[in-house]
């Protein structure tokens, strides 16, 4: 049973990581807009990931 000395803390640390991740996601505002998050899945292009580069001036378009 001595192995429990390692296993129990290991379980707690893993659970604690999960909790920390949850608290971080909460703090960074990921639960502030559940509706928007659900809709954002529908953006099918990658550009939202990389915002337009600065040289892309609106004046230059068409």
């Amino acid at each position, binding site marked *: 049973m001595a192995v429990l000395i390692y296993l*129990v803390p290991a379980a*707690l640390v893993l659970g604690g990581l999960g*909790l920390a991740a949850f608290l971080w996601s909460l703090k960074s505002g990921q639960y502030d807009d559940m*509706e*928007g998050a659900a809709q954002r899945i529908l*953006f099918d292009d990658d550009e939202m990931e990389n915002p337009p580069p600065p040289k892309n001036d609106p004046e230059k378009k068409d």
Partner: protein
Amino acid sequence: MNETAASETGSGRGADKAKPAGPKAGRVDPSLFVRKTPDGLNQIDLVVQDMHCAGCLRKVERGLGELPGVEYARANLSTKRVAVRWQPARLKPADIVEKLADTGFEAVPFDPKLLSALDETEERRLLRALGVAGFAAANVMLISVGVWAGLASDMELSTRAFFYWISALIALPAIAYAGQPFFRSALRALRARSMNMDVPISLAVLLATGMSLVQTIVNASHVYFDASVTLLFFLLIGRYLDVQARAKACSAAQNLLGLRAMAATVIGPDGTQHSVPVENLEPGMKVSVASGTRIPADGEVLTGRADIDTSLVTGESVPTAVSPGSKVFAGTLNISAPLTLRVTKRDDDSLLAEIVRLMESAEQGRAGYVRLADRAARIYAPAVHVLAAATLALWFALGAGWETAFTHAIAVLIVTCPCALGLAVPVVQVVATGRLLKHGVLVKASDGLEKLADADTIVFDKTGTLTLGEPELVSAGDAGPVEIALAVALARQSRHPLARALAAHGADIAAPALSDIHEVPGMGMEAMLDGETVRLGNRSFTGADDEVSSHAGPELWLAKSSDAPRRFQFADRARSDAAETIARLTHEGFAIELLSGDREEVVRELAADLNIADWRAEARPDEKIARLEELRAQGRKVLMVGDGLNDAPALRAAHVSMSPSSAADVSQTAADFIFQGADLRPIVETIRIARGARHLVVQNFGLALVYNAVAVPLAVAGYVTPLIAAIAMSSSSITVTLNAVRLNWRRID
């Protein structure tokens, strides 16, 4: 990617070139609402009401991303707000609002003072507590299962002690943190010398934890950390659902409040103009009011003639004309020409503020209402404590040890834990709120549904509630097609509500070409047709004689120098389903009453049309309240349906209230429910759902009582350990929740 962007904003782009530079007249100056972020950027929060879907979200964010210097633009679809951060040197805040307008979204700055109050919401605190409780419940359970397995095999005492201490180590801080929402609320109730559901919950959790700690220290065989932690976890889920539903309604209300925050353009003694927040206006200041904007303060007109839309204050849909010397009120809308005002009253003395004060005093009359769940708690909580204490005494009397006696007493507390009772109301409320939202009804007050189910009398306002609040052409008199076309051509050039109604009526009429069209403020439109002057406007402007019989509603006259003036009559028509809705409500046994601030003949006519026997006209806000008090004194429970600012105090004074979404901001804030669309049908639906919800709540209380009737005797007799009690308690909560979901399947027609 450029192509898609161009096609999406394409329509706005062409117009962009033609538009003169500078912010559009009539918008609030957004620079008043800019905040500094710690990293040197500027931030502004904007309310964008028209954002509904992924497409809008993307258009808004991408449009803002295209602006030079914008570092961050994030739209929140739940609250309909957009946060933008940018480098101050590269962009002006007005450009952001302008850009959104080009993309097709009207954005209004949101007051950061309101925002800072929202930073740490109850919702977030509960979610954090829920996370902590969830973590603790999972880990304590994991260890508890090990202990139970150890009972079957042979676990060494030292291993069990180790497990218990680990459980204690997890559970104690978790309970101290996650239990706070309940402890605080229980403390508040006790301080006010009353009882709520949280008192027995807190007591059960604290007792179970305290006893388990003692058991752990003496290395006894049973600890109940698992029971107290899971109890908290399940309770927090219910509490979170409840708060979330309320937060949603609240954010909508706050957006409305945010819209009220306005700025005024002050003209300095040296003639310079600058924007100041309305609360900084002082009597004697000179203010300029552009056409199409709201009057910022009560004051007197210095220069200019204009039509003022006072519907917000008086409920009257036809604008009044003002000229130098006339008094104007804050919150009314200048619809025709620029004005200069001298401010006569400070912001907090204005008529608007007076109405808000009336509302607050009306609010106090309401505070007497006790929610169903709290009424149940008043009986239930003392009963539970007496029962638990009796169990403790009973087992002592029977000669059991303190440990056994306490275990059984705690089991009684947990088994009677009003979880099911606590959930009975919020779960039904969440389901009902969600269902109503799909029907376009927003539930704002958490006790609104309960109160609505009690209502037996409905008092309607007229303008904007039973009617659409917009005039419609009812008769063109003896005007022929040519004259109608001419009137429509003139009307198309004006923003006056009557002109717009006329233009809408003749939307597909080919109008003659006019030249030199211009508006004479406070009078009407004037133009040239083939060298002849034509005028569309009020009686004196067009030279019509006064002898023609006056009709109840507003009117416009068309004059050509060669002809007698023609009359166009307008009326504020009832909503298309008003008569049907009134008939249905009467059929369901409601007493219907019409209480309007409008003129008597108009009200009488509408009451006759809609078959409302009981009506009152020309009622001022305080008279409306007086009437509601009278009804209350007769023991009636009144549902007030109204929309004008003048109804706001009445909406607050009534037992329960509803507002159409076209209502004045203040009225929407005052009402318990807001319904969308041009129909009155949602009123009937909301009443039905509220009654269905009350039925389910009563059923849920019944279920919880039946469950208690079975479980409590077993617990008192000592057949239930705290863990089994916790499991049984959760299952009753689930039953109650599932029962509540049935509201979704119930037909309402």
